[in-house]
């Protein structure tokens, strides 16, 4: 009896918060004006992107990360 007394409010609060999250998180297609700005682009600085990718490949290449075919074992 005591346990159900605690569980029911917990479930209700959880459900209540889950309906709030839908309101807060979703950006509608017509609200994407700011997101489509050049400043929001991840490739804003081409040199910075190229250098970051180069560093990533250098670091992860031996494990086969970053889209490089195979690992650094020389077997591919």
């Amino acid at each position, binding site marked *: 009896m005591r346990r159900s007394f605690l569980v029911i409010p917990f479930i209700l609060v959880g459900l209540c918060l889950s309906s709030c999250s839908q309101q807060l998180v979703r950006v509608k297609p*017509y609200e994407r*004006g700011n997101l489509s700005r050049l400043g929001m682009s991840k490739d804003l600085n081409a040199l910075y992107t190229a250098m970051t990718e180069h560093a990533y490949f250098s670091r992860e290449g031996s494990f086969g990360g970053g889209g490089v075919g195979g690992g650094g074992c020389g077997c591919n």
Partner: protein
Amino acid sequence: MKKFASSLLFLMCTGGALSTAAPVEVGRPMPKLSNLVPGAKVPNTSGKIILVDFWASWCSPCRKSFPILNELHRKYGPKGLVIIGISVDEKEADYRKFASKMKAAFPLVHDSAHKAAAAFNPSAMPMSYIVDSKGIVRYIHKGFSGARTRAKYIAEIETLLTKER
């Protein structure tokens, strides 16, 4: 405890209702634009076929759609088609700049408060709705893909105009 539970239930219900705005669908009546965009010059659409197009200055396919909409306006306007372009731009300046650049020949409405957009709930940009003379949505176009969308527009408008005669 009962009061606590009932108030939580109330919050859940209202929260759920707010988060699920039903989109405009084929076969349903079109929401009344004059109520949604107060103060805007919405043209007289009674007994006419309507093409409602949601656009924004930041949307590049919208830029491509304007010459086609201008063409449709010139060709089918005298036959009973009314095109209404609804901008969802937040800034008035962006809306004005884009409208003057694209030289829209059809009426434009600025929905800065997103009331019309919330009522139609478009799932992409641009999104257009073709409505028959009785105010029922007949066709919906998601996005704009050049000549293919143009051909669809023409076929659908021709079909509706033929039915009206």
